């Protein structure tokens, strides 16, 4: 580790500051990246810090070169490519570390600082929450402070305050411009921060299959699925069934969405109790949308399948806002074509024999399908337990195992076994998945539906009634339906003892406030897309927005804002306006100057008065009055407002010429 150039040129404290800033900005990435990336980065930064601190020689160039090649190779081996969100960010982080290691001149320090600004942006590819925004703002501040310290040049290194305070002022001055750019910058359709390939990766949600028994612990995710703003009152909890994928195909274990499902018009023989609402759907990467049973309108670009599942043409990659009308009191699907009927009754007779036998037995005992349904609900109600940690169902007959042995499960278990029992009893049935309930934020009257509110229920087809919703889970745990998942299990995602201590509801209010804030953030910051922009600008009275007009507006307003800030800065440094007495005194001097009695700049008021009196005895009285008042104002106890007016008046009326 010895080379020719000693690093005396770079100030060690400036370098340390830069290294700290780099660690700060990369820190959120370290948890997301493979461990070796974080280790490599921290090691390189520590190495560079050691070199700077002990004023050691820089690493040899070929060592740096080999490390750089190794980092690039490692990235390629990890991801199989060097581009895309994850691979690209990893590469950028590794190369930033290498840049720090080889940094010798102040020009390279400048480059590293600007690399830091790019690293700030990469964080937004992963998270766009408010805390991340604040954290990244802090990062920008620190990097600007680094820049400030660096620009100081030679001499005593800047203190923390000498870096942070000017940097903070710079940021504050940039703030108006930032707002203008945000509001006016022409938008493209699509989300603000997303790379096309990676946007769908790792987003959880509903899937298009359901296999009860292969999950032993359902993780209660606090993540928001969507938010709903209702026009008017929010319907009662037991009506809040948000319909998602409808699963028809059954293979003895899993329920799947059917491939064939023609589109249908939304016409119902009976459609009453309409509710209007707006859904803000978080991106989930799939095609389906959610609506209360039964949807009455279709958002643009969305079609309805014959089982009332809403599908958009493009996958929901970005937060989507749509308006809906649904009818809570409805009847649909009274005519069931033979093909669908056969499909809704299909099951393998060689699997789950005891379940099938029970269904057939109930059908034989009760000719009326409604009685069969009642019998089944009664069966669930009497013997089963609702739990999110059910035993695994590992036999070839999972529904037999559940219904007759384990008897513990959650909505998937009940919906799946219920639907199978119905099919065995000759009643056409299918599984509907979606979300049920949610949480009402009392602060903004918004319904927050979380991933934990995901639910599965059953629809059975009855002669003369069409498809009827049956929720077997409600037979087991009525609370789950009436008050939501929190009532059935207690609040989720929060330490239970905290909840118990929170009698005044401070904690839950904080949570609601935070959620309301997030909702605004999503709608107005992250969701500020081309439509919102148009809507907002129209409200401001700016119409006809093609991108050319927008660009003109952007340029004009930016110029105006920058101009205003500069004007303010200039005006701040201008000498203050003289006090009234001084202005009067100057005017008095000007008048006398015209009469040939100019005051010398260093001449005191009394000396001036003496000179004026000697030269112009006719002015002695008035000059004395004026000088007396001026001296009182300037060097004495000051003048009251009327006295100051009197001085101004006397000067105005003073006629020496």
């Amino acid at each position, binding site marked *: 580790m010895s080379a020719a150039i000693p690093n005396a040129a770079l100030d060690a404290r400036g370098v340390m500051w830069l290294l700290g800033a780099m660690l700060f900005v990369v820190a959120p990435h370290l948890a997301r990246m493979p461990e070796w990336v974080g280790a490599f980065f921290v090691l390189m930064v520590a190495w560079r810090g050691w070199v700077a601190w002990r004023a050691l020689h820089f690493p040899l160039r070929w060592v740096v070169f080999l490390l750089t090649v190794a980092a690039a190779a490692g990235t390629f081996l990890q991801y199989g490519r060097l581009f895309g969100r994850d691979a690209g960010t990893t590469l950028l982080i590794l190369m930033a570390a290498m840049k720090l290691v080889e940094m010798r001149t102040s020009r390279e320090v400048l480059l590293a600082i600007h690399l830091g600004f790019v690293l700030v942006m990469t964080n937004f590819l992963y998270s766009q929450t408010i805390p991340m925004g604040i954290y990244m703002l802090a990062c920008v501040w620190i990097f600007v402070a680094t820049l400030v310290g660096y620009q100081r040049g030679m001499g005593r290194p800047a203190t923390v305050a000498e870096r942070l305070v000017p940097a903070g002022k710079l940021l504050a001055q940039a703030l108006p411009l930032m707002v203008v750019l945000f509001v006016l910058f022409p938008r493209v359709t699509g989300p603000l921060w997303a790379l096309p390939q990676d946007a769908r990766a790792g987003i959880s949600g509903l899937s298009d299959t359901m296999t009860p028994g292969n999950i032993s612990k359902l993780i209660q995710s606090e993540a928001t699925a969507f938010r709903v703003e209702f026009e008017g009152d929010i319907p009662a909890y037991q009506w809040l069934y948000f319909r998602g994928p409808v699963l028809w195909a059954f293979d003895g274990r899993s329920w799947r969405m059917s491939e064939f499902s023609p589109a249908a018009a939304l016409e119902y023989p009976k459609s009453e109790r309409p509710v209007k609402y707006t859904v803000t759907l978080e991106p989930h990467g799939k095609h389906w949308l959610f609506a209360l049973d039964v949807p009455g309108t279709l958002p643009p670009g969305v079609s309805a399948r014959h089982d009332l599942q809403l599908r958009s043409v493009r996958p929901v990659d970005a937060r989507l806002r749509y308006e809906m009308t649904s009818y809570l009191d409805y009847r649909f699907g009274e005519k069931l074509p033979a093909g669908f009927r056969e499909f809704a009754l299909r099951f393998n007779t060689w699997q789950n024999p005891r379940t099938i036998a029970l269904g057939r037995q109930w059908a034989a005992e009760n000719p009326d399908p409604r009685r069969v349904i009642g019998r089944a609900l009664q069966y669930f109600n009497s013997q089963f337990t609702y739990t999110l940690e059910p035993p695994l169902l590992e036999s070839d007959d999972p529904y037999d195992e559940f219904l007759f042995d384990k008897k513990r499960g959650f909505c998937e278990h009940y919906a799946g076994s219920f639907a199978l029992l119905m099919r065995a009893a000759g009643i056409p049935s299918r599984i509907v998945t979606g979300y049920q309930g949610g949480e009402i934020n009392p602060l903004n009257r918004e319904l927050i539906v979380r991933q934990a509110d995901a639910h599965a229920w059953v629809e059975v087809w009855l002669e003369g009634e069409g498809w009827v919703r049956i929720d077997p889970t409600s037979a087991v745990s009525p609370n789950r339906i009436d008050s939501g998942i929190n009532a059935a299990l207690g609040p989720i995602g929060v330490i239970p003892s905290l909840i118990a201590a929170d009698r005044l509801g401070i904690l839950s209010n904080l949570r609601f406030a935070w959620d309301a804030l997030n909702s605004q953030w999503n709608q107005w910051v992250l969701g500020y897309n081309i439509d919102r922009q148009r809507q907002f600008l129209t409200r401001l009275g700016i119409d006809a927005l093609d991108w050319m007009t927008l660009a003109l507006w952007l340029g004009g307003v930016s110029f105006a804002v920058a101009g205003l800030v500069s004007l303010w800065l200039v005006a701040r440094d201008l000498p203050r306006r003289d006090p009234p007495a001084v202005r009067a005194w100057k005017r008095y001097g000007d008048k006398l100057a015209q009469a040939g009695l100019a005051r*010398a*700049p*260093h*001449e*005191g*008021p*009394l*000396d001036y*008065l003496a000179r004026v009196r000697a030269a112009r005895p006719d002015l002695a009285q008035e000059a*004395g009055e004026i*000088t*007396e008042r001026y*001296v*009182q104002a*300037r*060097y*004495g*106890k000051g003048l009251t407002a009327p006295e100051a007016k009197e001085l101004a008046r006397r000067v105005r009326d003073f006629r020496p010429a």
Partner: protein
Amino acid sequence: MLIDARARLAANPVEDVVSRASRVILGKEGQIRLALACILARGHLLIEDVPGVGKTTLSQALARLLGLDYQRIQFTSDLLPADIIGVSIFERESSTFRFHPGPVFAQIILADEINRASPKAQSALLEAMEEHQVTAEGETRALPEPFFVIATQNPQNQVGTFPLPESQLDRFLMRLKLGYPDAKAERELLRGEERRDILPTLEPAIDAPRLMALQAAVPQVGVSDALLDYVQALVAHTRQSPKYAQGLSPRAGLAVLRAAQAWAMMQGRTQVLPEDVQAILPAVVGHRLHGAGESARGGFDAAADLLTAVAIP
């Protein structure tokens, strides 16, 4: 009220001192006033002039008129600090050392021809001026109050002088030049009786307690922000202008302000005006300023330049 205040000051004891002193030192009313302002501002005075223009007479007249006791020390090249401070002498009767105070234990000291003494003797007096106390043989003794030193020195270019270093010059609030009397005053001087004979007939116009009360009132004279602006502009000019080798110190700025307050009080004003600053400025900064460069103008000339160079804000 601020302007024509002097008319109401006939009964002012300071005016009384000025008019009586003017009968002894003819034609030097301005210098007498400055010397009084210097005393009121609790500063020490340095008079620089050729011998025989009345330096000693002025200091003796002030001492008598102010009702203070007076000592004169003639500085010579062989003067020792003990000659100024005093010395302990063994007394046979009591078998103890007894301190015999030197001439410095008086209210007004005339230090004649201070630049003829060695720096050692000079510094003994200058320390007493600064501390208002002397330390002799391990014992600290306070000097009487008020304590006021009038030092005289011959112009620097005379033979056999030890010029006072700048740090010690800085301890004098003012430096005055008496100058030759004008023709009218000189005629009167030549015609009249011996000045020194008049001195014993002078009656005190004021006593020490009243003088100290007046001294205490000086810092109460009002100083407005505008006036401080002016003082700061003056000081800043000496620091920025290339015409001066060295700018005025903060202590000098403070001295200007104190002297101006004393001057304003003598004018019967409760507030300081720029004219007050201008009146005392040459005396206060003259010995602290030195011109730079070939055509260096020192002392009073530099102070006069300063006055005209700085506009009153």
